[in-house]
């Protein structure tokens, strides 16, 4: 890590649309800026491999994907430093960033930090979801973007939400076969979503979305109102068993089951930094508390993009620019009036991009049975803890996820609760008959990404140790 400055005005973490847009604007307007990203190339998940995807036919991944290239060019020209392959495992309240790259760790200080850690798929804990061959639709989409790979054999998709339909469409465009889509969207969601339809109808999504949906429905068997789902197989998934409404169990052969029911903010780094967060009932997830500029409860730390609440890729871009303007203001580069004036077009664009989001949230809100699994379903994959064990702990008087963590080791594994946190919260809240808001969430701890002992040992020595050596 030779090319880094010893300290930056602004460090942006995550090179998706929010991070790219934020870093570009800040660096263009004179802040010494570094963009730290875990991946080898910019784009985040939504524009994953945008500079190097082997899928060159633009019709496969779609024009929305290729918009990502419009963000990368200006970023390259912005003067921001870019550090790919860097895992950020800690951001302290003193704005010291712990990161690892190429087997060495270091602490990089910054005057302001923008977290652009994006979204991750909401855990979808059905019986058998830990079998090989079962994966998130998001993971399948990454394989397609980075390597041009699609699943072969019998492919079943199950779940709900725009990304599921987008992946189905991309799969079909890439020539893959999909045996069936099991739609778990609860029927009653339509009642909640209908009043929000007019706003959605005025958004840019509606035309594109409908076209995509119809194309998929023409080519793939879609089974709606799926109320129960499980994967079965000996050593790997071989079939998918489901139920429609109150109907009898049906079975489909499957070599691959792609699950998805929405995305939620990736809050791990913000949480470990100590940013306050609240339960969002509409999106059914924990969301960091931010103001209109993305500023969190921790001085000097802002969040841009889906990491501060799901708004989608276009919204993320605009939110990135707004947080960058606020960073410029807070660091004394521009006054408040300039910030507010320059923010106006981005705010307008953000409002446009968020139009109709309420409708999607309401329509694709996952059904309770898929959020609050039955007793024998594993919720914590790292420690193999079942929903039943969590319920038993609640019966003993364990009242929140931090206690189940201490009690069952649930959430103590290497994923730091990314795969179980939302489910554990739902299960405890349901068992106690209270809102998840009352149950709380894991207190996460750095390193939020695993680092090796060797990396940690390579950190510069503590100041007092250095001082002790100097004085001898």
């Amino acid at each position, binding site marked *: 890590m030779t090319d880094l400055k010893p300290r930056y005005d602004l460090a942006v973490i995550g090179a998706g649309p929010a991070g790219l847009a934020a870093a570009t604007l800040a660096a263009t307007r004179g802040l010494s800026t570094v963009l730290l990203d875990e991946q080898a190339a910019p784009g985040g998940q939504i524009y994953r491999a945008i500079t190097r995807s082997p899928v060159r036919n633009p019709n496969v991944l779609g024009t929305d994907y290729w918009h990502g290239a419009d963000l990368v060019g200006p970023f390259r020209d912005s003067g921001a430093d870019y550090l790919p392959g860097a895992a950020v495992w800690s951001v302290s309240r003193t704005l010291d960033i*712990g990161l690892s790259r190429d087997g060495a760790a270091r602490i990089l200080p910054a005057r302001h930090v923008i977290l652009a850690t994006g979204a991750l798929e909401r855990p979808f804990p059905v019986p058998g979801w830990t079998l090989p061959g079962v994966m998130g639709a998001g993971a399948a989409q990454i394989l397609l973007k980075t390597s041009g790979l699609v699943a072969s054999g019998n492919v079943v998709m199950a779940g709900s939400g725009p990304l599921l339909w987008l992946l189905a469409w991309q799969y079909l465009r890439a020539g893959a076969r999909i045996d069936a889509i099991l739609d778990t969207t609860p029927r009653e969601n339509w009642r909640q979503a209908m009043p929000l339809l007019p706003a959605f109808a005025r958004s840019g999504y509606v035309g594109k979305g409908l076209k995509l949906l119809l194309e998929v429905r023409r080519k793939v068997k879609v089974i709606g109102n799926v109320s129960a789902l499980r994967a079965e197989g000996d050593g790997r998934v071989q079939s998918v068993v489901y139920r429609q409404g109150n109907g009898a169990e049906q079975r489909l052969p499957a070599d691959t089951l792609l699950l998805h029911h929405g995305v939620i903010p990736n809050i791990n780094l913000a949480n470990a930094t100590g940013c306050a967060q609240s339960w969002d009932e509409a999106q059914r997830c924990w969301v960091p508390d931010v103001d209109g500029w993305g500023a969190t409860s921790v001085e000097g730390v802002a969040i841009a993009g889906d990491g501060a609440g799901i708004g989608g890729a276009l919204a993320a871009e605009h939110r990135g620019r707004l947080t960058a303007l606020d960073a410029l203001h807070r660091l004394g580069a521009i006054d408040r009036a300039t910030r507010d004036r320059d923010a106006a077009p981005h705010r307008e664009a953000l409002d446009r991009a968020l139009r109709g989001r309420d409708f999607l949230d309401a329509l694709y809100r996952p059904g309770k049975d898929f959020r609050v699994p039955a007793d024998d379903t594993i919720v914590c994959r790292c420690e193999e803890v079942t929903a039943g064990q969590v319920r038993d702990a609640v019966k003993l008087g364990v*009242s929140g996820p931090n206690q189940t963590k*201490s*009690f069952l080791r649930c959430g103590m594994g290497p994923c730091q609760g990314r795969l179980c946190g939302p489910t554990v919260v739902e299960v405890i809240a349901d068992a106690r008959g209270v809102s998840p808001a009352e149950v709380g969430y894991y207190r996460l701890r750095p*390193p939020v990404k*695993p680092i090796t*002992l060797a990396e940690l040992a*390579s*950190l510069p020595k503590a100041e007092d140790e250095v001082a002790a050596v100097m004085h001898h």
Partner: protein
Amino acid sequence: MSEPDVIIVGGGLHGCSTALHLALRGVRALVLEKDHIGRHASGVNAGGVRQLGRHAAEVPLSVASMALWHGIRDLVDDDCGFESHGQLKVAETEAELDSCRERAAQLTALGFTHEEVVDQAELRRLVPAIAEHCLGALVSRRDGAAIPYRTTFAFKRKAESLGARFHEGAAVARVARSGRNWRVETADGAAHEAPVLVNCAGAWADRLAAQLGEPVPLEVIAPMLMITARVPPFLKPVVGATGRTLSFKQFPNGTVLIGGGLLGRAHRDENRTDLDFAKVSTNARTVWDLFPIMRSATIVRSWAGIEARMPDDIPVIGPSGTEEGVFHAFGFSAHGFQLGPIVGRITADLITRGASDLPIDAFRIQRFRHTAAAA
């Protein structure tokens, strides 16, 4: 609801243990805990159950507590994850090995035989993965480790089953005399009365002591720990070092806990700690030196608990020096977990019999009368 006989402030291990030992004698305790049971040091410490290397004043208590640990299931109906594979302190130089011999001799002179010095061959038998340069160790074979939150929770549940009551989310706002009783008001507006008050408030205990007119020089500290992803089993005992700060052990599930008392920063009013990764790194280098097998291990989490340390590194245990009907048990200075079972019994003895058969003079709160006044 009937008023309790004793109000205990603090739902950590010492508060829960005191409630249990009182309940075993038919004395009804009410435990007031500002957060939830085992939220701080009691729930997140390294879990060492250690007689090894204790301050001379603590040794009799530690030995008595060890007997309770070896029958912990009989006491609380849960094994608390307690496993006894010994604890040892590795000597890396001849000088360190000499200090181990001196220590063992000191204890023998005091009449205790649980610590012994072992040579390089026995060290390698006990800890095959230890680095080759290590020359021997001080060993306490009946020591071990348990799971802290599970332990604290087990004490709470057993106490509760015998009639103790626990109010979580009940921060004490004010304590005052009310006739023969102590009246304890909590931040949520409730008030409770009992003739006896016990201060087990850990890192917050100095505030209660100050209200009772006996301020103490308590330091709020945040000892840091880290844990690895699972690695194949290679270690049974808990390993420390003679010349450096380390506490190192492998859980039955394969994860390895690395601690030893290096301090982060505690913010007790916010229930928050900041880690100091430069110091965590020092710990990592110690492990690098002593356990070559660990060099490729992955650290998945680090944390710190909020704990109280007294200037002389031993706790405050015993009756108040200013008020009748008040007892203290706090300030365990990052090594109170093993003492939990016995200190609850000592405090219950003090309340129900007016005395303990263990020597606790060294822990009197009066020892700070002058230092705290000067501070």
